[in-house]
């Protein structure tokens, strides 16, 4: 073997190939110093008179002042939505509703670079992802539900679907514009009007979206946006709405469910997860490694369906972990606006502290930590992609949702054991199965308690595919024909709780 390598005068390999900075220009985004609430088609100052600063988590630089909507502001927004509903939207020809949704979709495509930059700026996610994932999917959602708007009778034959009225929608900070699209598109297609509250830390893309609505000439009051922290959300839940759709933490979801009990308001919840990504020894190994990386480091692990618990068949454990560690060394952590960045900034200081706390707990409990060598920027919120091996099912890092770039690795021996461990969690949002054996994929999918199961891929989304949870990951589905149902009342089946 040695003689194979001896080929005389070898040319030395270079010691490194550093990619030059390739930042996407942020000039395309024009920020206001101070924003208003979007109520009845106009930006209005909050009656509360309160504002807070929204920042760029990669630099901690303030970007704009955002209104903190109080109960009075929320009530005005709900009233505007009521008016919008009564003054035409609910009675508009379904094809008319479709027209606006198609317009919105096309405008989002046309302005996608602007939105992608803003999304990365305000949320910390790599431009590669906001450009290639968030924006195309957000536009696709509007296109998809535009198509349903005049076909509701076909979606639910013999059930005479009717809109509910005003939907209150509360979305998280991990995919700000995409979650907005998931919420607004089906609600409007079904004939409802909307009051939406974006997350406290990432309001900017929702506020820019108001400009898209104006450009599309959507009638006033059909979509209203109120910004603020959890108090604003609480006011919306208490408000005179017919339905609440919430995506966020299980803790808040439970509080909302308690609040709404007995009110007759419809509710859908899309909550946390602690998904098992299950690797069988006959899988395509290098592609499974990519799937693991995409499952947990995509969007800094700020993904409710992230594959945060890796279950590896013991017979393949060592080569897989070696490959995974090697792959981690090629992840590029840094400036979200750099086109070569794979992992961006953690969304907020609060989230960073939560991740740090759980990682410290993992070390203390005895798990073995691996982090690739990594230079992090000095300012901003950052966390190195992390793998914990030697994790026991009982550790906090195997039980609790970390919502960061932290993977916990456990092993299993047989398919039965994989199912048992995967289901042994209060959550049930998603799971991944990696095997070349088609029959095993089906066998596993029948037994895993999760709303979404990916086979030989991970974190793939499509507007036609319903998404939602089992157990404490929530109820109701978003996406697909299923995603219309929570926004409709049916003949003899009026809106009712849960």
């Amino acid at each position, binding site marked *: 073997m040695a003689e194979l390598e001896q080929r005389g005068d070898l040319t030395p390999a270079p010691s490194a*190939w550093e990619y030059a900075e390739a930042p996407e220009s942020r000039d395309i985004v024009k920020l206001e110093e101070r924003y208003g609430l979007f109520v009845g088609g106009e930006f209005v100052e909050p009656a509360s008179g309160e504002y807070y600063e929204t920042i760029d988590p990669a630099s901690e630089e303030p970007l704009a002042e955002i209104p903190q909507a109080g109960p009075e502001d929320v009530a005005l927004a709900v009233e505007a939505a009521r008016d919008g509903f009564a003054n035409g939207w609910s009675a508009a020809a379904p094809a008319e509703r479709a027209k606006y949704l198609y317009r919105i979709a096309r405008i989002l495509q046309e302005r996608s670079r602007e939105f992608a930059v803003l999304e990365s700026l305000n949320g910390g996610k790599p431009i590669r992802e906001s450009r290639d994932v968030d924006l195309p999917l957000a536009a696709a959602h509007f296109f998809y539900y535009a198509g349903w708007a005049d076909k509701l009778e076909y979606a639910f034959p013999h059930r005479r679907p009717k809109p509910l009225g005003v939907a209150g929608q509360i979305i998280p900070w991990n995919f700000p514009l995409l979650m907005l699209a998931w919420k607004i598109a089906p609600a409007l297609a079904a004939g409802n009007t909307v009051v939406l509250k974006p997350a406290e830390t990432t309001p900017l893309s929702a506020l820019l979206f108001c400009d898209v609505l104006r450009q599309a000439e959507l009638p006033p009051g059909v979509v209203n946006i109120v910004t603020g922290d959890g108090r604003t959300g609480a006011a919306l839940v208490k408000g005179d709405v017919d339905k609440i759709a919430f995506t966020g933490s299980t803790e808040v979801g439970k509080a909302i469910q308690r609040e709404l009990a007995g009110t007759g308001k419809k509710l859908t919840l899309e909550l946390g997860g602690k998904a098992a990504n299950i690797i069988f020894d006959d899988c395509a190994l290098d592609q499974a490694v990519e799937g693991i990386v995409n499952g947990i480091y995509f969007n800094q692990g700020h993904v409710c369906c992230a594959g945060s618990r890796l279950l590896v068949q013991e017979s393949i454990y060592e080569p897989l972990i070696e490959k995974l560690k090697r792959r981690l060394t090629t992840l590029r952590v840094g400036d979200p606006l750099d086109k070569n960045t794979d992992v961006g900034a953690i969304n907020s200081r609060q989230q960073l502290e939560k991740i740090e706390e759980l990682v410290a707990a993992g070390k203390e409990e005895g798990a073995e930590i691996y982090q690739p060598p990594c230079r992090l920027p000095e300012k901003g919120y950052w966390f190195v992609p992390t793998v914990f091996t030697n994790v026991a099912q009982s550790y906090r890092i195997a039980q609790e949702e970390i919502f960061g770039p932290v993977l916990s690795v456990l092993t299993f021996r047989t398919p039965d054991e994989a199912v048992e461990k995967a289901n042994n969690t209060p959550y049930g949002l998603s799971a991944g199965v990696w095997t070349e054996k088609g029959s095993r994929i089906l066998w596993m999918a029948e037994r895993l308690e999760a709303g979404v199961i990916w086979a030989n891929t991970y974190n793939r989304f499509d507007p036609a595919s319903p998404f939602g949870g089992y157990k404490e990951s929530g109820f109701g589905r978003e996406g697909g024909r299923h995603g219309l149902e929570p926004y409709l009342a049916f003949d003899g089946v009026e809106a009712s709780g849960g």
Partner: protein
Amino acid sequence: MAQAPALPTGFELPLEPRLPRIGSVDQVAVEARATDLSRRSIKRESKVFALDLAVRMMDLTTLEGDDTPGKVAALASKAVRPDPADASVPSVAAVCVYPNLVQTARERVGDSGVKVASVATAFPSGQSPTDLKVAEARRVVELGADEVDMVIDRGSFLAGRYAKVYDEIVQVKEAVGDTHLKVILEVGELGTYDNVRRASLLAIAAGADFIKTSTGKLSSSATLPVTLVMLEAIRDVFEETGRRVGMKPAGGIRNAKQAVQTLVVVHETLGVEWLTPDLFRFGASSLLNDVLMQIRKEKTGRYQSPDYFTID
């Protein structure tokens, strides 16, 4: 003959298995990964670095029925001095020609350091008896080739007669001795990424110094996902045995952008260690001029007419 290492189980071969398994390739996922890597944005000094490297890694090739000593002499001169107007542009790695033209190429490259590579083993089909192929390979070395590019017998491979393919590579390797052996898989005829991986491991196990995608005679050749699959096979062998095998995509890489994308795939799959002509080559005929044009553009800030670059 060198001890053939790294034999996966499942082969009908009389060697002790060392890789735990051949493994498989997921088509959708490997293509998605290649697409992701192709979106890296390589600019300024990192681009200049890559373009310079691409020239130094190039096997400037002509493999046509109408090749003449005049044509090959011109190509060999270009190989030594790709850009007469810019002395800082390095020579390419090798010229690759048919056996009858090895001596012409040899004389023209002289002691410039540019290697002469030639094809053998009934290129491009490989459909000849083994003894003829072995004799051809031996003769090519006698004619003065520094490197031999052989083709595998795809007919036998697709018929499942892996041992025959393997034995033939072993015999050719024996015949060429210390001469650098590149084994062409002709991926366009293999049909699946699983086969590309299987053929890569087989060729490496039989003693290939390099594995090479294609003859350049088919329209489907060195795509980015195929290159990635072969690099992953090389990586698995390296991690299992410590042995370093080279890679040569050939055919289909026509412009500088594709070359840079390919180098990104090498860099992020095998690391900077493989960014040397000893472990990576581009087999190409029309790529060089586009790379030269891009180098000129990076240096002067503007594009020049193709008329300023020689056609050889």
